[in-house]
């Protein structure tokens, strides 16, 4: 056997003339994405980082005739990752070879964020420090001597206020003129000794500096340990021995010791750099912030936000005014008659005629629903959501509801996916991955599938029930009750530890138009790319079902269930539609009601059952993607059975008590 002792040649990168990369790093809420958008313009792609479920944005920018690829990473607090997002951000560091790394930090919190800069520097990365949010810092009366900081740190430091695009030119200049300087700082001698003891045993090639690898090993980072194991091979036991020896010798939490050491260095670095006068009285935004988190004023404010944002803007304006115009005026009066006329003249085959403009036709059903009904509702919802998100209200809402949410096995953080669920449950199901434990993710997924109607459904249901006095109240009561009861039971049944709640509360601020538009745009884009094909698919399936008679058999199969709920057989079609799109179902009811087939009780029962009923196909597929087949099918069955049981009970109750006549 021939043993090849020569090193195996490293495979060349796929694109030899690949564009140099710019990586953006930073804590959450420091304006990283705003900088990203300012650098790259509108041409960005959002995609999963290879092998992970976390999305990152990529874009391009040109500086001094050189084209760069820009990667925006998820917010991270430290090189030692805790959440999935942070893991991915670190993964990017371990895999990419950047031209520069822009570390974006909040000028108001230099002392808290500089430790991360130290970590990037000691990893041997080409760091440019972007001190963002200078405008807010100045408003607090802070002065920051960036020149001095640059001198002390030994790396390029640029001041910026990205919300006003201040500092963008300087950042571009710093990228173009970057020349590698080696910043250096030293820890206390004993820690340095420990680091070199471990680092000297690392023989392999690493993308990051050995000091950084040694520090991560000492803090028992599982992935880095894995990486070192595979790189060092037979030498690994010596590394492990050194790590264990240090950990035992110190007998303290090394993570704490290293954190304190970094804090000490940062304080020394910032001496003379930052001047901040003693805080004067509370500013308006702080007083407003106090009001939003005080339960006595916070809940009325929440109701006001819901009323203005959800009811007035989405319900009345989006689902009312815009839908009436698009659906009533544009489609029903103009486009549909014109297209049906065209089809009558030119499409001779009746099956194609049906497929295009028939009862479930691609145009008359799919496109009309998608464009005229769903688009305005979802669009106004996402706009309202993005405005509220940009003010920084959600973290306050999260801490306000934390105590209630603990009862249902979640913590305050879960309020964000749940609120998003009122826009689109499918998207919200995806966002549940930001919750920390599997238990919370499953509970949130169940609640989203069951008791959170999406905006499209909500819009139709509100319109449907508002004509019947009392029906809306009964419906809301049922849904809230189911939400709480199922959450409460799930918290008891599901194993796992109680969730903990901690969150950074960013300052309240005026929403920035640019941010709001970009956020709304990306959500809409995703919604349309993901949902629109499903609309088409659904309408093709319904058409095929109608043509082959399968639909009829399904409808008649569901008829006993409908009768049990006290509903006419025709309602079955609404339920079948409901699986393709939740709002199809609600809209199906709408058709029934306008033709006068439903009594108030029937209408309410149908609306409740349909709201609780199986999520739409898209949400089901997302559940499968996020939670796996078993959980998805389990949740699907549970939700279906529960929906019908609740519908049956409600029907009995309403008939028995005579509420709603």
């Amino acid at each position, binding site marked *: 056997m021939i043993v090849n002792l020569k090193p195996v040649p490293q495979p060349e990168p796929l694109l030899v003339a690949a564009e140099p990369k710019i990586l953006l790093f930073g804590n959450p809420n420091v304006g990283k994405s705003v900088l990203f958008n300012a650098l790259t313009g509108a041409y960005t792609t959002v995609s999963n980082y290879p092998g992970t479920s976390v999305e990152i944005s990529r874009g391009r920018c040109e500086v001094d005739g050189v084209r760069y690829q820009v990667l925006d990473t998820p917010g991270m607090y430290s090189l030692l990752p805790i959440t999935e997002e942070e893991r991915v951000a670190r993964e990017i560091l371990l895999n990419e070879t950047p031209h520069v790394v822009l570390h974006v930090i909040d000028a108001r919190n230099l002392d808290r964020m500089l430790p991360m800069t130290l970590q990037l520097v000691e990893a041997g990365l080409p760091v440019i420090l972007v001190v963002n949010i200078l405008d807010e810092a100045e408003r607090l009366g802070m002065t920051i001597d960036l020149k001095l900081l640059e001198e002390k740190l030994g790396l390029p430091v640029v001041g910026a206020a990205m919300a006003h695009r201040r500092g963008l030119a300087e950042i571009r200049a710093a990228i173009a003129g970057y020349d590698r300087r080696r910043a250096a700082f030293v820890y206390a001698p004993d820690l340095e000794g420990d680091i070199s003891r471990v680092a000297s045993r690392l023989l392999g090639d690493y993308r990051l500096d050995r000091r950084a690898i040694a520090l991560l090993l000492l803090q028992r980072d599982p992935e880095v340990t894995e990486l070192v194991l595979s790189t060092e091979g037979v030498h690994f036991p010596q590394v492990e021995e050194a790590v264990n020896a240090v950990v035992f010798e110190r007998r303290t939490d090394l993570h704490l010791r290293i954190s304190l050491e970094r804090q000490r260095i940062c304080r020394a670095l910032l001496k003379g750099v930052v001047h901040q006068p003693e805080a004067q009285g509370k500013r308006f935004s702080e007083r407003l912030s106090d009001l939003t988190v005080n339960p006595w004023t916070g809940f009325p404010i929440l109701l006001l936000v819901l009323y203005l944002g959800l009811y007035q803007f989405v319900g009345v304006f989006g689902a009312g005014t815009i839908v009436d115009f698009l659906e009533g005026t544009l489609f029903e009066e103009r486009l549909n008659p014109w297209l049906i006329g065209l089809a009558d003249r030119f499409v001779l085959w009746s099956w194609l005629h049906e497929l295009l403009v028939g009862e479930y036709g691609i145009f008359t059903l799919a496109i009309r629903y998608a464009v005229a009904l769903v688009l305005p509702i979802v669009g106004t919802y996402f706009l309202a959501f993005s405005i509220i998100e940009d003010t920084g209200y959600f973290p306050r809402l999260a801490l306000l509801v934390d105590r209630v949410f603990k009862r249902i096995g979640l913590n305050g953080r879960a309020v964000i996916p749940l609120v998003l669920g009122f826009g689109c449950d499918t998207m919200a199901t995806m966002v549940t991955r930001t919750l920390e434990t599997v238990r919370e993710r499953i509970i949130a997924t169940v609640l989203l599938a069951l008791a959170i109607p999406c905006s499209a459904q909500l819009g139709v249901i509100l319109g449907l029930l508002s004509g019947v006095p009392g029906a809306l109240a009964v419906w809301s009561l049922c849904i809230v009750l189911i939400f709480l009861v199922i959450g409460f039971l799930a918290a008891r049944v599901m194993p796992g530890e*109680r969730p903990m709640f901690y969150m950074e509360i960013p300052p309240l601020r005026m929403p920035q138009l640019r941010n709001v538009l970009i956020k709304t745009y990306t959500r809409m884009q995703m919604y349309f790319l993901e949902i629109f094909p499903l609309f088409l698919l659904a309408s093709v399936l319904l058409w095929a079902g109608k043509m082959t008679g399968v639909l009829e058999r399904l409808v008649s199969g569901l008829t006993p269930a409908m009768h049990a709920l006290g509903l006419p057989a025709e309602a079955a079609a609404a339920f079948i539609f409901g699986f393709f799109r939740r709002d199809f179902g609600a809209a199906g009811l709408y058709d029934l009601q306008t033709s006068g087939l439903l009594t108030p009780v029937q209408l309410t029962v149908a609306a409740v059952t349909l709201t609780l009923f199986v999520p739409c196909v898209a949400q089901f597929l997302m559940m499968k993607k996020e939670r796996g087949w078993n959980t998805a099918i389990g949740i699907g069955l549970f939700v279906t059975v529960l929906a019908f049981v609740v519908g049956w009970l409600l029907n009995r109750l309403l008939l028995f008590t005579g509420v709603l006549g």
Partner: protein
Amino acid sequence: MKLTVKAEEILEALWIATVEAGDNAALLQTLGVGPDDDGLKELSARAFIDVRGERVYLRPEGRPEAQMMVRRHRLAERLMMDILDLKGDKGEARACEFEHLLHQGVDSKICTLLNHPTTCPHGKPIPPGQCCEEARSHGAVGVVALTELRAGEKAEIVYLSTADPKKMQKLMSMGVLPGTPLQLNRTFPSYIFRVGNSEFAVDQELAREIFVRRG
């Protein structure tokens, strides 16, 4: 002469059943002893208690010793559960053995180590000892959990006691580090505190694990 373990146990139970429950006497049954118990005799001989029929009375002479016994038990509980991390029945059992060793100033050492706690892990009061009174009269600033602060108070973070390293790591990477000054702004519905120019919210469970020094 030192009391026997059995006598100490009776005295402790008697304190809880009378002084804390607001009764003037306790039934033999409540104390879990028969009328001929050696411990009872020992206590009667010292005039710490009176036994009349089925009822046992704590005499004023017995009060200081009974109070210290309860104090030793609850200090032992705190030591087991907070420092040695022995929770539940196991911790309780060890505390019951350990309390009998806390004599001759050992209790005040433990009390000082625990920073003069006022309640046991079950929320019952720990009768203050001499060391507590001294600390109070010297105005010693104590290390307390964040939950002990009032809204608006300023303090310095001393240590984080969370048993879950991930949570501790998260708090530390957010800048919640020993040696950092903080100001507590709200205690309800969550604990909101300011570190530097940032605000953080944590729930009660986590706030209990952030220990601060007042002032």
